[in-house]
């Protein structure tokens, strides 16, 4: 089903664009140029951060961290391997991308922890960064319950990611 979904999405979007009199090819290449720029923009921070994450992995510190977190994480149904991602995600988008990519590479993109990492990256945001830009842009000093509520959403997102992976990709 999913194998057909993506090609069809391409075809329907193209057909819809032409029906709406969009210069299809020009729009595709303009967007692609933006996409390449985004990829180039993430590269410098990824080089710097992935170096540090790979060092942490090689030292054995990440395994140790997973071991320490395992009892609490298993209560929430979250694989302990993803602990570094869970802790970094609310603070730094590029850090989370580095840690998440390393998890996918280390355990394999189709492994349980690897898939969880991808779903977590896709379904959560850099909470502290987002709240900071929003509240500082409109001069808010008292953010009341916004940050605790957003962190609840993050925690639910992590647990739900692992749950969804187990649901859609049961280990056979």
């Amino acid at each position, binding site marked *: 089903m999913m194998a057909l*979904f993506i090609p069809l999405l*391409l075809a329907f979007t*193209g057909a819809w*664009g032409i029906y*709406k009199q*969009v210069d*299809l090819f020009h*729009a*595709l290449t*303009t*967007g*692609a140029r933006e*996409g*390449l720029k*985004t990829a*180039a923009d993430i590269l410098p921070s990824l*080089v710097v*951060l*992935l*170096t*540090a*994450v*790979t*060092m*942490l*992995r*090689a*030292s*054995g*510190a990440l395994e140790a961290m997973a071991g320490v977190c395992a009892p609490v994480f298993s209560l929430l149904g979250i694989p302990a391997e993803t602990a570094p991602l869970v802790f970094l995600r609310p603070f*730094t988008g590029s850090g989370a*991308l580095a840690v*998440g990519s*390393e998890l*996918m*590479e280390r355990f394999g*993109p189709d492994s349980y922890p690897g898939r969880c990492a*991808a*779903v977590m*990256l*896709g*379904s*959560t*945001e850099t*909470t502290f960064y987002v709240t900071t*830009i929003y509240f500082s842009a409109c*001069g*808010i*000093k008292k*953010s*009341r319950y*916004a940050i605790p*509520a957003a962190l609840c*959403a993050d925690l*639910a997102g992590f647990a*739900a*990611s692992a749950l*969804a992976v187990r*649901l*859609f990709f049961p280990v056979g």
Partner: protein
Amino acid sequence: MLMSVLWLAMVAVSILYGAAAGTLPAVSAAVTEGAGTAVTLVLGLSGTMALWCGLLEVLRLSGVLEGLQRLLRPLLRKVYPNTFANNPDAASALSANFCANLLGLGSAATPAGLKAAKEIAAGSDGRAGDELCRLVVMNTASVQLLPVTAAAVRGSLGCDNPFDILPCVWLASLISVSVGLAAARMMQGISDKA
């Protein structure tokens, strides 16, 4: 500053832990390995990223964003009743923000979201109102139909079907945003009583 401290802490912990666990040679090898991996990874994912951004540009130009806004207006009106009743400008910026996030158009989502937030916060003497809190919670919960970056990383690592995580991402996002809004509602009740 946060990133500087974080980075230095990661490097320092690697060295200290490596010294204690006797893994220093591996830590040393990891320096070149990690830097190299970052480049292969980004090279591998830039094709997918570019293609999807092209597709999103077609969606944007063909009015899908506006269509989605009309479709989701009734739903958003339930979450932000005051804004929709009293401030049409903020309401339309707010739906533009939500729908651009949904399509993964980050560069369109943030300006619209900030515009909505400023309109909602106008005259609020520095204290965040309930609907502003909800707007921020929705923006931190990342409701996204096409998680392009995550899928592109999967593709870059040689995965056959990088987008097969879509249903998982939808379910997780839905749960996450629902829990966020429910938590906001509960905490609002508590802060009203206090």
